[in-house]
């Protein structure tokens, strides 16, 4: 190995670093050396320790040492999940290259790249290209795309933990497989933050047996301060809801005391609200306070990002849009508003402050309702115990596979056997059968089993030389528009009547407004003028009051790691330790809960029965996260309705769930043990959930990814109106006529793996069966139940027939919406 240590390349890079007063971290040195020796692998390092430079400089050093091995054109491909990362990374890389004295060009290519620049890149690829998984697939859909990748030496997957566990991860796996096909000696490097299943993360990224594989873990640890912001008195906190507006007075001094503060909220709607609240509380922040989220126009976002980096902005209210990697040096403080739902996510947000290696990260937690204080307390304990969540990779996602097959058919075309051989090496498809593969081929050529007789269906055709291709230009175009695995709600562009974009808004929200109504976007109060060609035309509004938009996505469930700690902390909330200031503060509320109902101890399970004007409520608190509660509640509804047929509406949050009925709920101490028993658990679950309904919801994304539903493009004149249909409609058609359709099967599998979280549910029931069950009746809502009443997602569960339900609603007199 000494040869590498003495190599010219390393010497040059070391000198360059030394000039900047830096020395490489040990993990960087290791990466450089292993890369030089032909390894692929995964680098595990916290943000802010130069993980980018571990892999990037490894390629630079190798080039300096062996320029003869590199040809003209693309050398390093850098794939990262977020577009916003690319710009800053490119800047940092270009700077390094210039200073080291290489003549490489570094360029970005993603959805924001202008067409002219893309055409230029297609004529001559840069030496380093920064891109996203979706853009990679778009490149594969171009004619003669293989020529761009023939000279490629290395592909780096940045923030791999963000991709693993969703379908974009599968897109990435497939992209790597295709790149290996074009450039067989390619070295592959993943970069990830610490997660619970690092070994698996590595196996998913690098399933290839011909590679030399290594894992390099940084020893550096980020120092972290968690400070909870408490109101003056407990009544100040609303019991639940989005806003602790009065907390603004507590946030302003924090902003004042720091150079630049990032204020994280959980949803775009909340971000808009808090932006208004802070500006109202301190109007002279105007111009120094900005708002940043995924629905804001990209030019504005870029401007904001630049101004964070230059330190001009004092504070930015943002969502997960600023979660990842960008190096904002001036940021020295992070404020989290509301629950953060997971330990890893919390750490990541905290890491946005004090970005350089030896600074401490500082994160303030502002609760939006009282129970969240228990969560901070739980977070502190979990961080101390270093309990990170795992990200489970997705497998057999046929929607992504058929999309990829059509992508290749639009591009250079493919041969079936050769592609099947490659696909089986990809982690996500290692268990694909020949039958499955045949079905996929059939699906893209004939539209599925039942469609063989229709002559007008020509998506992919088997061309001369046994190559599968797409020949229709229109189908190619429709397909390119549909590439990707992020399915969003239908969005509309928001534009001033006089010109100028403001951002995007969900169609379902805007559809509730009439011309003349006011709403808030990007911190501005806007008046709706008209809707035209999927574009919302607005003008500035003078209205004082306006609706804040809500976006459907972005509600994450509590992770099981965090919920474990939450139960633990709540159970001893009545007697908090000396240093647990959150729990001490919460004591009056906890005492109230104890007085009116009960605080469940670690070995107890609480059930509350409450009657109000709305009807009869049953509350249970498993603290298992929203998804598990969805199944849990349906199961309870099913078991109760076996005692007496009835219809419930169900509400749930991360702490518990509510069953609400217009009739008395027959639950008491005599039957509660049976209702919560472990016996026949999964049988009852399957009987209780409307699996078809759940699968139909999952099918929405699948249908879009597999190209069964054409999404309308915001802002475009051509919205393919004659091709509009809902995935629900197609789901029903397939259920009726092609029940063994693989995409249908996938929808059901996704329901069982993700929605039902079978393992977690089983564990919960085991725990409950060992617990003491406490049933309490209360006259009014308790501190635990109130948040469920006001801030939750609702669904309906019924075992009565449709007509019977209508009859009963009728008897209560109809209300029309």
């Amino acid at each position, binding site marked *: 190995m000494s040869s590498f240590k003495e190599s010219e390349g390393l010497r040059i890079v070391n000198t360059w670093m030394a000039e900047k007063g830096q020395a490489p971290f040990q993990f960087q040195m290791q990466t450089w050396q292993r890369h030089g020796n032909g390894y692929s692998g995964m680098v595990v390092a916290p943000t802010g320790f130069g993980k980018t430079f571990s892999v990037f400089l490894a390629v630079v050093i190798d080039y300096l040492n062996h320029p003869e091995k590199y040809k003209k054109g693309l050398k390093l491909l850098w794939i990262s999940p977020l577009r916003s990362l690319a710009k800053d990374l490119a800047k940092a890389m270009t700077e390094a290259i210039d200073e080291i004295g290489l003549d490489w060009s570094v360029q970005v290519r993603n959805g924001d790249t202008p067409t002219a620049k893309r055409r230029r890149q297609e004529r001559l690829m840069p030496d380093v290209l920064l891109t996203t998984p979706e853009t990679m697939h778009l490149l594969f859909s171009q004619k003669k795309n293989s020529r761009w990748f023939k000279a490629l030496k290395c592909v780096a997957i940045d923030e791999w933990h963000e991709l693993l566990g969703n379908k974009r991860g599968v897109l990435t796996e497939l992209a790597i497989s295709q790149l290996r096909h074009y450039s067989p000696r390619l070295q592959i490097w993943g970069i990830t933050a610490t997660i619970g299943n690092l070994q698996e993360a590595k196996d998913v990224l690098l399933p290839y047996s011909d590679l030399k594989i290594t894992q390099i873990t940084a020893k550096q640890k980020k120092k972290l301060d968690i400070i909870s912001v408490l109101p003056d008195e407990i009544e100040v906190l609303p019991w639940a809801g989005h806003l602790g507006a009065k907390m603004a007075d507590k946030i302003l001094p924090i902003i004042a005391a720091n150079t630049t503060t990032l204020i994280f909220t959980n949803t775009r709607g909340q971000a808009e609200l808090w932006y208004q609240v802070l500006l109202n509380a301190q109007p002279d922040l105007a111009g120094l306070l900005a708002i940043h989220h995924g629905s804001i126009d990209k030019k504005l976002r870029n401007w904001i990002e630049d101004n964070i980096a230059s330190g001009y902005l004092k504070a930015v209210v943002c969502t997960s849009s600023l979660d990842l990697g960008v190096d904002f040096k001036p940021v020295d403080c992070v404020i989290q508003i509301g629950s953060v739902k997971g330990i890893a996510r919390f750490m990541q947000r905290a890491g946005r402050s004090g970005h350089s290696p030896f600074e401490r990260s500082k994160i303030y937690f502002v609760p939006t309702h009282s129970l969240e204080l228990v969560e901070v307390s739980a977070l502190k304990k979990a961080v101390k115990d270093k309990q990170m969540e795992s990200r489970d990779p997705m497998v057999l996602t046929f929607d992504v596979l058929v999309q990829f097959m059509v992508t290749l058919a639009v591009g250079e075309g493919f041969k079936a056997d050769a592609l099947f051989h490659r696909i089986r090496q990809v982690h996500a498809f290692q268990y694909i059968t020949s039958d499955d593969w045949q079905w996929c081929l059939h*699906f893209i050529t*004939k*539209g*599925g089993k*039942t*469609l063989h007789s*229709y*002559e*007008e*269906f*020509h*998506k992919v055709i088997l061309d001369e030389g046994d190559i599968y291709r797409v020949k*229709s230009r*229109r*189908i190619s175009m*429709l*397909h390119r528009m549909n590439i990707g695995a992020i399915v969003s709600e239908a969005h509309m562009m928001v534009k001033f009547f006089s010109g100028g974009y403001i951002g995007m808004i969900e169609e379902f929200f805007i*559809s509730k407004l009439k011309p003349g109504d006011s709403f808030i976007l990007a911190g501005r109060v806007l008046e709706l003028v008209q809707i035209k060609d999927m574009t919302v035309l607005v003008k500035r509004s003078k209205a004082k009051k306006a609706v804040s938009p809500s976006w459907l996505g972005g509600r994450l469930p509590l992770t099981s790691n965090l919920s474990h700690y939450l139960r633990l902390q709540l159970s001893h909330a009545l007697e908090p330790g000396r240093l647990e200031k959150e729990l001490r503060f919460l004591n009056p509320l906890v005492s109230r809960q104890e007085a009116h109902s009960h605080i469940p101890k670690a070995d107890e399970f609480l059930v509350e029965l409450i009657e109000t004007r*709305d*009807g009869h409520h049953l509350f249970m608190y498993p603290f298992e996260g929203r998804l598990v509660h969805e199944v849990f509640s349906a199961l309870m509804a099913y078991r109760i309705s076996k005692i007496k047929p009835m*219809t*419930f*509406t169900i509400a749930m949050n991360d702490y518990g769930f509510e069953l*609400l*009925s*217009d009739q008395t709920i027959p639950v008491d101490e005599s039957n509660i043990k049976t209702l919560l028993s472990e016996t026949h658990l999964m049988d009852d679950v399957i009987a209780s959930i409307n699996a078809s309904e759940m699968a139909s919801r999952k099918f929405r994304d699948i249908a879009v990814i597999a*190209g*069964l*539903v*054409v999404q309308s493009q915001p802002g475009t004149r051509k919205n393919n109106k*004659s*091709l*509009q*249909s*809902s995935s629900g*409609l*197609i789901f029903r*058609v397939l259920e*009726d*006529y*092609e029940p063994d359709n693989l995409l249908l099967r996938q929808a059901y599998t996704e329901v069982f793996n993700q929605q039902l979280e079978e393992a977690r549910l089983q564990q919960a029931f085991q725990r409950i069966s060992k617990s003491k069950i406490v049933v309490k009746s209360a006259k009014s809502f308790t501190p635990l139940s109130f948040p469920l009443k006001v801030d939750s997602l*609702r669904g*309906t569960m019924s075992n009565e027939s*449709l*007509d019977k*339900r*209508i009859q*009963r*609603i*009728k008897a*209560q007199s*109809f*209300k*029309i*919406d």
Partner: protein
Amino acid sequence: MNIITEHIIVKEEELNLTNQRAVYYDRLRALILSDVHIGKTAHFRRHGIPVPDHILQKDLERLKFLIEYFKVKTVYVVGDLFHAETNSNMKTFKMWLSQFKDLKMILIKGNHDRQSPHLTENLNIKVEPSLQLGPFNLIHEPVEKPSKLFTVSGHTHPGVIIKGRGKQKLKLPCYQLTSHQLILPAFSLFTGLNTRTMPKDAKCFGFTETSIFKI
């Protein structure tokens, strides 16, 4: 298949709203319906989206059942009989149509009915921009302001959400009736429901496979 009807009296004429998405006008032995969207499944397939023809078959079977049940003489389609270009679905439709010897079919042109006139000539369907039928004016799109004649239209694919105690919600297709117009549900099952365009003071008649009722 169950045909359940709700009788309403409009302009002193008796109309039967059926739960099978069509209105039967007994005095004229006429069936009035809207938004059949023939050609939609083939149109989807032509654009690479696999949808089988079973949906069309089911729609046509239902129409046949209605025609035979009421012994209908004339079918009035108030727009969107067809979906897009002339395609293989039209052949299916022509075959289906040929089984009725004395049935008259009249189409009030809808926004989707932009095919060449040869198609309707060939099928022996008369096409009108709008049509007066007794006291009614048949037209495709609902009118915004009250007109002299009572209008019967379609176009919007109306649906209704009903709410009960305990925050229950149900979404059903419906007929919308006001003092000056009747809006029909879409006949084809391969259509969505629109719960947003509710005319002022509209009474809704929602229906299921086994019932129809005023809301």
